[in-house]
């Protein structure tokens, strides 16, 4: 019960934290806590990228997309290193890749490549997580 309350309060605090605070917490976190924190950062940057593309701020949006990949890679590495949250992280990557593909379709052809590359990278990280879940990546 205490663990559930603690997890709920951690989740609630993660939602109200600024991105900078979340990043600082991730940097100081134990390896087993990093997959969830890094995924949260990646998801926030994905939302930011979507909003920035809608606002026509393409350069800033592309920087946010780069963050999505960077923090997804960190989540992937931490999940494999700790052996925790592999399935949750894999599902989160799948959903983020779907969002990236959807964002890509709303863009001009010239702006699509970085978003497609990010979606492909997430798919590749996801495949790697699946391999580890089934013992092939060890």
């Amino acid at each position, binding site marked *: 019960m205490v663990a559930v309350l603690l997890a709920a309060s951690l989740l609630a605090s993660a939602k109200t934290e600024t991105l900078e605070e979340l990043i600082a917490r991730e940097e100081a976190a134990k390896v087993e806590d990093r997959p969830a924190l890094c995924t949260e950062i990646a998801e926030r940057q994905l939302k930011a990228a979507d909003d920035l593309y809608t606002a026509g701020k393409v350069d800033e949006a592309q920087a946010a997309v780069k963050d999505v990949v960077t923090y997804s890679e960190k989540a992937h590495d931490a999940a494999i290193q700790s052996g925790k949250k592999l399935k949750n992280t894999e*599902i989160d990557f799948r959903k983020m890749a*779907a969002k990236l*593909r959807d964002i890509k*379709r*709303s863009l001009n052809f010239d702006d699509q490549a970085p978003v*497609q590359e990010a*979606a492909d990278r997430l798919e590749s990280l996801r495949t790697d997580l699946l391999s580890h*879940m*089934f013992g092939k990546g060890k």
Partner: protein
Amino acid sequence: MISTSGRLARLAFAMLLLSTAWAQRRRDPLNPLEEDQLRDAAQDPAERLKLYIVFARTRLTSLEQMRADPKVTDRAQQTRDRLQNFLDVYDELNDNIDTFVERKADLRKPLKAVIEADTEFQAKLRALKSSVDANKDESKQYDFLLTNVLDAVDGGVQDHRQLLNEQEEAAKHKKK
């Protein structure tokens, strides 16, 4: 000295490798025609969600047709690929619903169609699960994926029903 036919064969092989590498690198579940249809319906939630239902249904139908075809030899791999394709489209459907909710769109009508489709997808996927349970050797390659797809659709049905209830409640309060 390499003959012309030899050069052509090498060129064809290189092109095949390139196209395979490109296909592997760029994994998009939708074809260009479907992408165009979605672009045309960008501002219309009802139309866009309807398209996603059609695309998802097409993937499941294609899966059923492939499994019913006695000539298919790599059944396990093809089942896996088609299930993944369906899941990718279904994830995008859910992602679009989230986006329209954020924009405060009235989704009551399209959600009813989505829930109907969810029920249809659930029934087809459960039938597939029952049929493959009888053939463990073949299903090893995609059993985990099939469980994930069923989880996604089961979760989807609940979320879509809850969202429809919320939107109907909100609409009642608006009327008062």
